[in-house]
């Protein structure tokens, strides 16, 4: 092998134009690692499952022109403490359908976020309850923000984001217009989503710790101004999802 060819090949591969990577990978891997750690201790799902749940992906169409009615409601106090942690609920209604976001914080500091719709209690798994939402809401698109108000979480500034879209290619949370990257002053705690029922809307939930929002009233407009959601478009760029 000539030194010239070696050098030319190396240089070509180092400088070849390739797509830029997504900073979410670092956070998602750390999140998946923490969850896999905890689940191993509990003897539950494998790491691969945690990875799949850590990055929210699916497929998506354009959001509609007509907004759905989304009305935040005061958060309910969480159920009693379990052996594994203290679930905390936040509620909202979407065109009259009650939605409950439940955040379990585990003793090791990791968290799981689940969604219950139409009176169903969120399960302990990441699965969403198949729901009357898709049949009740004529055009179930858009997203809403609810925040958790229980004393323990109000000290952490945890904001829960719930949304639903059609054919998502991926969604991500942004704070002040910026997605998470190393050094960001917020943390994506958990995220997950599912198309349910098949062919129905893609519903997702994200939990994000934003210290700057710590202690705010859940109806404070600064929450909605600070926290947003972006979806990946057909050309791979990220575009803002209208808030409803």
């Amino acid at each position, binding site marked *: 092998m000539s030194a010239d060819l070696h050098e030319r090949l*190396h240089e070509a591969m180092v400088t070849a134009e390739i797509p830029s990577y997504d900073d979410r990978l670092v956070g998602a891997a*750390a999140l998946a690692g923490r969850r896999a*750690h905890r689940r191993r201790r509990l003897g539950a799902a494998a790491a691969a499952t945690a990875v799949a749940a850590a990055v929210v992906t699916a497929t998506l169409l354009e959001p509609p022109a007509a907004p759905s009615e989304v009305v935040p409601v005061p958060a309910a106090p969480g159920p009693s403490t379990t052996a594994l942690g203290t679930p905390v609920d936040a509620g909202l209604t979407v065109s009259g359908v009650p939605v409950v976001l439940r955040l379990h914080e585990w003793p090791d500091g990791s968290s799981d976020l689940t969604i219950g719709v139409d009176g169903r209690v969120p399960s302990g798994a990441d699965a969403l309850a198949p729901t009357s939402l898709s049949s009740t809401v004529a055009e179930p698109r858009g997203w809403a923000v609810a925040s958790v108000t229980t004393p323990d979480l109000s000290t952490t500034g945890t904001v829960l984001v719930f949304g639903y879209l059609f054919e998502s290619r991926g969604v991500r949370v942004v704070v002040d217009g910026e997605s998470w990257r190393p050094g960001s002053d917020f943390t994506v705690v958990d995220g997950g989503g599912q198309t349910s029922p098949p062919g129905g809307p893609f519903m997702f939930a994200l939990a994000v710790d934003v210290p700057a929002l710590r202690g705010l009233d859940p109806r404070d407009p600064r929450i909605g101004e600070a926290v947003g959601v972006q979806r990946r478009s057909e050309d791979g760029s990220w575009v803002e999802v209208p808030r409803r």
Partner: protein
Amino acid sequence: MTRDEQFTDFASAAMPVLWRTAYLLTGDPGRAEDLVQQALLRTYLAWSRVRVDDATAYARRVLVNAHTDGWRRTRREDLVDDVPEPPGPPDEPALAALVDRETVLPALALLTDRERAVVVLRYFAQLSEREIADELGVAAGTVKSTASRALRRMRAALTEHAPTTNGGTR
């Protein structure tokens, strides 16, 4: 510094090279993301036994193994009547004259998964043939012959698609 802080520092620093390795191996952003994610996750889980100064090499090994596992599962053999490439060493000066940042990705895309892995590990990661053999779990002789075959195919492809002058093909 906590485990998560250490890992985040490492992952942030290692991401560019891991991402480029994964993309060169696959040529597909989605598959590259999956590989990087797997590499980071397994590195995170093994963090307590990974030496910080060796963490990037560990993550790359995980990444390459995950890629190799993928193509081993899907590998198929197709028998053909004719040998696809003529024997003989690659024409190194000819290949050196043709390869650059514009042509290398299309040329890599024509290689088999194993050929591609050998070329990326040899010329991007700059591993020795012995190190590549260890990472891929094959004999050093296989690495050598695979690299030779891959370079021949790259040269053939680049020659075929080289810019023409006076209507002729170089």
